[in-house]
């Protein structure tokens, strides 16, 4: 009986089942990469020895313990979460704008979130002490969330008319937004003192190096909200691919869907930018590859993008750790080196396709 229904669902041209198998494969891949990343670093410490000793209740070398549990493990968790959040934000934005070029980094949403974060770093001290204390570590992610949210709304308002997004307007609005945000960030940098300046510079290059459990704990809820919330939009985004009017005809409350999408993008990008700075291109590379492989249906696309986004960011982070060891190349630079050419390739391939 089960077997029969299984055959019945294997409709020709429907890539759902292949997408499900891809999910399994990507989960395995992420697990392997995650474990591997615990081994890779400036010191040759075996995580197995540390975990084994911990489980056996034996005393562990303090240095090894710190490296594995307090440096590499939070960094692993942070990398996976940031990668997943950025990739999912990319899928949701592309679905919302009905365009595969809508990447949070390219159209200025990350920059907007970044401005929020920078303002929090530089001006955080000016807040009423009670409020500042209440927000604590959460100040930077929350500010980035607000900045990201404002950017998405601004961009959508400018680029979309009657449910139709003009790609040219979207990209141009992104440039304008980035310029404006860049100028405001410049003002902030001008105001910053030496310590803040150093923080800002390193943060802006994009890095997971500063990952700690306390930082992670603060940014995690927002990223988890985005990653877990996005699959709820899968059906709405599928219908939206046929246009706003068709989506409404299929029973979708468009306004509600847009509001949820903006919150998801802002939460994912805001939190990711707040903890890792300017890591770009995850949101365009990952969904694009998966669309080529398993099709654009958003249900599997969102889940697979989260998995592949996490995997790619962990891989890029490993490269960043070993390529100039014992120093580190910021991961943002590595993603830009991969993502820049990729974006150009997508542009070349799409020239003349469906009016884009």
């Amino acid at each position, binding site marked *: 009986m089960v077997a029969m229904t299984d055959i019945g669902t294997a409709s020709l041209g*429907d890539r759902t089942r292949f997408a499900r198998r891809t999910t399994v494969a990507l989960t395995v891949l992420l697990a392997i990469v995650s474990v591997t990343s615990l081994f890779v670093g400036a010191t040759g410490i075996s995580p197995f020895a540390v975990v084994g000793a911990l489980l056996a209740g034996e005393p562990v070398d303090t240095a090894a313990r710190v490296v594995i549990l307090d440096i590499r493990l939070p960094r692993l968790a942070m990398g996976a979460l940031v990668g997943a959040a950025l990739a999912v934000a990319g899928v949701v934005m592309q679905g919302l704008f009905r365009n595969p070029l809508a990447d949070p980094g390219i159209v200025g949403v990350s920059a907007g979130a970044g401005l929020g974060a920078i303002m929090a770093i530089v001006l955080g001290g000016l807040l009423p002490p009670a409020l500042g204390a209440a927000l604590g570590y959460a100040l930077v992610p929350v500010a980035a969330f607000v900045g990201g949210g404002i950017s998405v709304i601004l961009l959508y308002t400018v680029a979309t008319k009657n449910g139709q997004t003009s790609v040219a307007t979207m990209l141009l609005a992104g440039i304008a937004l980035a310029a404006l945000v860049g100028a405001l960030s410049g003002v902030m940098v001008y105001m910053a003192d030496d310590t803040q300046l150093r923080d800002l510079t390193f943060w802006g290059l994009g890095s997971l190096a500063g990952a700690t459990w306390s930082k992670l704990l603060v940014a995690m809820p927002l990223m988890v909200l985005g990653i877990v919330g996005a699959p709820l939009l899968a059906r709405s985004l599928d219908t939206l691919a046929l246009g706003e009017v*068709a989506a409404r005809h299929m029973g979708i409350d468009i306004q509600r869907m847009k509001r949820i999408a903006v919150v998801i993008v802002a939460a994912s990008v805001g939190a990711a930018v707040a903890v890792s700075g300017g890591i770009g291109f995850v949101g365009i590379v990952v969904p694009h590859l998966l*669309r080529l492989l398993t099709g654009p249906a958003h249900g599997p696309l969102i889940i697979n993008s989260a998995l592949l986004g996490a995997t790619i960011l962990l891989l890029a982070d490993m490269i960043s750790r070993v390529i100039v060891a014992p120093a580190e190349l910021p991961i943002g630079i590595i993603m830009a080196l991969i993502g820049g050419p990729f974006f150009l390739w997508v542009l070349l391939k799409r020239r003349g396709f469906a009016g884009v």
Partner: protein
Amino acid sequence: MLTATNLRVSIDGTEILRGVDFVAQPGEVTAIVGPNGSGKSTLLAALTGAQDYDGEARMGVLDLAQAKPWELAARRAVLAQFTSVAFPFTVSEVVRIGGGAPDLTEAALGRVGLTHYAARPYHALSGGEQQRVQLARVLTQVWRPMDAGVARWLILDEPVSSLDIAHQLEVMEIARTFAAEGGGVVAVMHDLNLTAMFADSVALMAGGLVVRQGPVDEVLTNETLSGAYGCRVQVNTAPPGGTFVLPQAAQA
């Protein structure tokens, strides 16, 4: 029953519908005809919840101004003149977006004669084929014309405008069958001959009004058509019975 009473729509200060009365019965194909700019598409938009209006419009017990999108979606499906698809879906994935089960996808593609196109990229199809895929998608949304004794509605905006004659007939047959099984069909039509062949009721629009609605032989007459379209149109009857339209009369 689908009814509109004294429907008024203004867009950017221009009055598009000026008090439209319209009625469509379940079990019938109701055609909306009229010249370009007479308000056909706007009326359809109002009847599908895509356009705000003054006046009253009801689909059975549903007040169209109040109904939620998902309430409407369960009762009626809409085929637009053109549907743009944003991402590289396959044909069968586009049909799946209609929300039907996978076996329904196959059945619907079979209904529009595109079974063997299921695995093809949607964007590689011709305009007419794409329109038939959209019809299949729309059909999955209201697959059973009657649901718990209540009629469902198939609303078609110029469903045959990009099709060759064989597929025009095929699509109109699908509409007829849907009506014969108890559902209601409302279609905006440009081809008056097809209208005469397939419609039970015709609403003729001109200048933002339904100037006349009724059976084919009462509405498609020399006087009403010539008045509405602003050119001389002559209606004739073919020998076995059935109305046809002769545009050549304009040059006589």
